[in-house]
């Protein structure tokens, strides 16, 4: 009997010890961006409002969690790479439109203005693009690729992300089909991505790993990831294809069910302020190397910002999304 009492007591106590309420914080932030933690900390220091930062893993895994929460979202704010997915969440009423005055308060650059969605599903906080990542130990200076078409010379040794698993990779694919034509783009990829073990990678990290360990000579990767590797001393460079690059905005969205709208607005104001932007650069990982889109804010040293952009036709990209992703999967993943 004594033993049973002891067991019962022990269970009771441990149960109580973890029964603390889910969150007494002023804001719950779901994200998959390196700088979200430092920004939340700086925001807390400035405003006294507390933020619970929830980071389940990659963008895909965060999206999976949000999808499972469905009509009962537990976050107040979501902050991720990718615009199309924000539009989908807004269409499902998981996100509510960003109040118009929130945009008006920010002095966006022209690039920044071009990223504001008509639906107001998210507020862009920065951007990046896709570039060609080259291992300088494997490729000689005179053999560097200059365009997507040049990648054919590296057939079988090109690492790429699977657009089925990566929003940015889909935007790259749609951008390539726009600049090189759908048939031209498909023919080019068929000649270039001849090694399935390299062309269906699940994350930018795996592209980096393939390029750095020498399994691949070149990779198609998010440019901020490449600049972060350069800063860490890795032997790689980023080359922007002459066809032009498609912008990949980072977006901040507000939950349709948030009970903390005032705190959410304050968070947006802070992120787009000089202090918030400084916190977004206070680190050396991939996302800290974003391209600023607020006037008067410079990118981290070493980050290329003089890039020739091409504007992605979102409607065409979204219309063919299922078809093109499947085509990619059938040809280069399985």
């Amino acid at each position, binding site marked *: 009997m004594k033993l049973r009492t002891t067991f019962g007591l022990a269970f009771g106590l441990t149960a109580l010890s973890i*029964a603390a309420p889910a969150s007494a914080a002023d804001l719950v932030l779901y994200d998959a961006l390196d700088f979200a933690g430092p920004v939340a900390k700086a925001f807390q220091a400035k405003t006294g409002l507390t933020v619970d930062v929830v980071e389940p893993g990659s963008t*895909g895994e965060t*999206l999976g969690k949000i999808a499972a929460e*469905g009509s009962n979202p537990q976050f107040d704010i979501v902050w991720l790479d990718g615009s199309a997915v924000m539009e989908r969440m807004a269409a499902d009423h998981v996100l509510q439109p960003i109040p118009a005055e929130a945009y008006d308060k920010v002095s966006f650059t022209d690039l920044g203005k071009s990223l504001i969605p008509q639906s107001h599903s998210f507020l862009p906080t920065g951007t990046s693009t896709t570039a060609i990542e080259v291992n300088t130990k494997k490729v000689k200076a005179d053999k560097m690729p200059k365009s997507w078409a040049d990648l054919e010379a590296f057939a079988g040794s090109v690492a790429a992300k699977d657009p089925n698993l990566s929003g940015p990779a889909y935007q790259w694919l749609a951008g390539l089909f726009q600049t090189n034509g759908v048939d031209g783009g498909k023919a080019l990829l068929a000649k270039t991505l001849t090694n399935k073990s390299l062309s269906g990678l699940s994350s930018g990290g795996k592209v980096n790993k393939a390029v750095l*360990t020498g399994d691949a000579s070149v990779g198609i990767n998010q440019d901020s990831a490449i600049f972060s590797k350069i800063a860490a001393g890795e032997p790689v460079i980023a080359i922007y294809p002459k066809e032009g690059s498609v912008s990949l905005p980072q977006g901040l969205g507000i939950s349709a069910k948030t009970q903390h709208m005032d705190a959410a607005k304050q968070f947006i104001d802070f992120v787009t302020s000089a202090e918030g932007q400084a916190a977004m650069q206070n680190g050396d990982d991939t996302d800290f190397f974003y391209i600023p889109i607020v006037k008067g804010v410079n990118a981290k040293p070493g980050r290329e910002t003089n890039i020739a952009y091409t504007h992605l036709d979102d409607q065409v990209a979204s219309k063919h999304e299922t078809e093109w992703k499947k085509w990619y999967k059938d040809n280069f993943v399985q």
Partner: protein
Amino acid sequence: MTMVQNPDAAALAGGVGSALNRAWPALARYGGPAVVYFVFTLLIGLPLALVLLQAVMPGLFAVDGATGLLSVEPLVSIFSSPSTAVSILHSLELGLLAAFTTTLLGGAFAVLVQRCDIPLRGAISAVPWLVFLTPSYLKALAWVLLMSSGGYLAQLGLLPPALGAGFFGLAGLVFVHTLSLFPLATFIIGSALAGLGSELEDAARLSGAGALRIWLRVNGPLLAPAIVLSFIATFAEVLSDFGLASTIARMSSFGVLTYGIYAAASDYPVDFPAAGAQALVLLALVLLVVVADRLLRRHADPHLISGRAKPARLYNLGAWRWLVLAAALTITFLALIMPLGAIAVRALTSTLGHGLEPGNFTLANVTAALSPYTAANEGLVRSLFYAGLTAIIASTLALLLSAQLDRSSPVMRTAVLGLSLGAVAIPGIVLGFGYILVWNRLPGFRDWPFPHYGDGSLLVMGYVAAALPYCLVVILSAIGQLAPSLTDAARLNGVGAVRRLLSVTLPLILLSVVTAFLLTFIRTVFELPMSQMLIPQSGPPAPTLILKLFSHDRDGLACAIALAAMAAAGGAAALVWYPLKRFVAPGLRRPRSNIASGEPS
């Protein structure tokens, strides 16, 4: 058969009047099984069902209005896709091959450390635990670092190109799975071996049987349930693996089902019907094997532990022991030293691209991992706490359930064992999704204060669910060996159900309960999918922090933190193990003495 095993039911009945006394037999008959069903349904059945059901009810959790309409479309589209058919074949082929090699290696290792008089036996018996301590995603990364065409072995000139190319395929996958999972087989088979004693073996020897004959005709058949269990458990484990599926298998274009599930589940919106349909296939594969085993081995499993067993004798291998030692050390080198070495090198180097160049070595990652008050350290403390709590709850629950199940009908045992092993085969991410669907979407559950989605309480519950199948497998196999005469004798002397469990059953199977506890503790410190899906808002556990660093390409720091976490988890496990070791199977430590193992006091 009609005695109650459930302490709550027994307590309830203690101080109430005659009305309840009349209801007592009914409560006793149905109360126990009802508790078993309830625990299983709540922890595993319901969450799993909500994901699997979507394979036939794709609109069950649609954001724009849920519908319960039946549809075969998801299953048809899965089965009509040639790539899924290939994935199923690949999963099956890999699972069966790796389960066979793993059980063989693990069984041999168990016999080696428990029955053979080889040098360094004590140190070698710690190897399976150390291998088990290394999480599978680290092992997968280690082998990629080692075997890539520009990897560490190639840089050292130790990797013939043909071997490097051959590694990324079925052979490499079986090789790495075998080296990673053999500890499980060692634990399961070793657990049964410990209960075997030497009476039957001695009898056979006295009747003139040689060692080979004894193993083939006496010990082998007696160990068959454990061997089969180990085969099925490792088969299920390989099927559910994601660490190797997303690295070596992906790099080999060797598509498996878990990768398909991950791909379907990592986007917005999640393709739940596709994930559910593929998970259903995984479950079916494991259930097929469990049922096949039941049909092939219809006789009852032997009850071996009588409480009077003499400890087994060690074999004197003579000169052969050096050869056996060399084999054990080779396994140790391949399964432990090489992967840990690769992880350590990555933790001690600055960049991946400059590899083993002298200028690339640094202590920066290790210093960062060991500095106090970092997010990583806080996460680690949190994870150790959650893991300890999970291990206590899961092993206690498994002990209570096993005691109940052991007296249940064979059908219920098969059902529970099948469901448990099926749950092992389901990738953790699916169960994690199920938990979100139950505790954040289902009316009634979502407003329940404890456990609550977003709290540490639900994470611990999820951890318990993920760990319970293994605890059950380990404890049930030990309890199944107990001769019923022991508890029957206690019962006839008027000893209550709780005391019988604590004073008779528990001391006899303490080794297995402690094994289950430590297995759960170590697995939980590094458990990934539940940690990701049920991450508490108050702060993340260690695995999500490590994974975040990996997915954000900071593998040097991630490797350093993972090594620190392994040292902490190993240290904590040792703190539990060494004081307990005095009570657990003393006969095993002094094999030639006459102390009876597990003699009840």
